[in-house]
């Protein structure tokens, strides 16, 4: 049997072993995959609760509970850039739904601060928070978002706020149909967790250095493969 064929068989065997190990350990791997995304912390006394706009059913209700419990005196909300449906008055703007939910849950109107910035993405939202905090250097902020969304939010907070990210604490809002121990049993859970991993990858490339690092690693791997192949060929060539 040639050395090349032995190498192929060994690689295939290793891949099969890894696959079998992953399948047999899925009971531990799957909950760990969701738990890794959730970096929520217990609340600490703060100057404001900042709601990352998304599901008002979870995030605004959590923010209101924090204010009612006395963890912070006010809520900060970004304003969203209007969609076509919102422009035509078909549906309420997302931030307005959040504001109404906060009011409904007992947060007084004077304690809801709307930041006039027309955001589109989580990254824009954190930029909006950073701009608001420029004149408030000592403020501590509780940032509320859905549990699986906290890892990406933490990454963005660190990137945008730098050292000031330590003045923020991420609070996980519980999500309907997406529990860490059973997320793979519902379509909404799978969509949420898998899409968060994909978005983390996208953010690392779009806003971080992962694109350059990935390209550099790719070039190194191609060169290494080429060099190995040349060496292999030289070794396996019949000697004159």
């Amino acid at each position: 049997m040639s050395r090349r064929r032995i190498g192929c068989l060994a690689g295939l065997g290793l891949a099969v072993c890894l696959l079998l190990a992953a399948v047999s350990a899925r009971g531990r791997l799957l909950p760990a995959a969701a738990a890794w995304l959730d970096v929520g912390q217990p609340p600490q006394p703060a100057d404001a609760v900042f709601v990352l706009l998304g599901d008002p059913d979870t995030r605004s209700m959590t923010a209101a509970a924090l204010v009612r419990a006395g963890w912070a005196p006010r809520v900060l909300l970004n304003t969203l850039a209007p969609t076509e449906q919102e422009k035509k008055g078909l549906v309420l703007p997302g931030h307005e739904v959040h504001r109404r939910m906060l009011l409904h849950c007992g947060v007084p109107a004077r304690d809801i601060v709307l930041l006039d910035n027309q955001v589109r993405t989580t990254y824009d939202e954190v930029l909006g928070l950073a701009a608001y905090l420029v004149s408030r250097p000592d403020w501590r902020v509780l940032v509320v978002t859905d549990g699986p969304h906290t890892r990406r939010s933490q990454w963005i907070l660190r990137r945008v706020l730098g050292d000031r990210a330590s003045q923020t604490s991420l609070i996980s809002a519980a999500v309907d149909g997406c529990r860490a121990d059973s997320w793979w049993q519902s379509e909404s859970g799978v969509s949420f967790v898998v899409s968060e991993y994909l978005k983390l990858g996208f953010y690392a490339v779009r806003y971080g250095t992962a694109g350059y690092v990935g390209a550099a690693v790719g070039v190194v791997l191609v060169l290494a493969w080429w060099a190995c192949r040349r060496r292999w060929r030289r070794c396996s060539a019949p000697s004159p």
Partner: protein
Amino acid sequence: MRAIRVKLSVAALATLLVVAGHGPVLRMLTWPLVDEQPPHEAAIRCLQGSEYGAEGDPTLDESAQWCREVPGRQILLLQPWPHRVVERQIVPSFEQMVRRELTARGVSNAAIVTLRGKARDEWEEAHLLGSWLQQNPAAEVVLVCDRFHSGRMRYIFDSVLGRPLAAQVRIRPMADPDYDPAYWWRSRKGVKDVMYGWLGLAYAWGAGQQPGTPPHWTFAEYQSLLTETYGKAR
């Protein structure tokens, strides 16, 4: 040396082809997501959506015009599971919103029928529509849904209803007004829609309908969960 030159040329040509021909390749990526059928004359149209809106107002404009054209045409609404913002009447329900918009476009209230059943997902919607079709065996329905979810809807309806009944349901994919579906990759929303379309379709293919429905807290349940979690600040 010559072999290397040939390989490099092939690689360069392949890269050029990928760069120049990325449009057709990316469009091809959405083929399984879309159930494109020739237009069909049915007397009943079915709308589905979320509490945060129907699938855009082209759906409402087109459906209203379609309903006004021939007397006796009906619009069926599949009422989704109410979110807490709807439960507390912070935003109108899907039914209230669609009725408001269709009547404003000249459709009579009597032509709009709501199938009540609080479907938690598309599988339950298919069961709901299936029960209605069994009571109305001669009816043919055109289901209007999001373009990049239409392939999944077709799969779900075929799986739940079985061949003869599923044939009574046609799918009408509607494009999102916020971007051009032929160039979906140029818009963030388009990329998200295709990503969620693939995740949903892959889950439907791989897992099918799950026996247990995921927990959905009512407003009161969620409030008590939060009070338990956060208590009072020190």
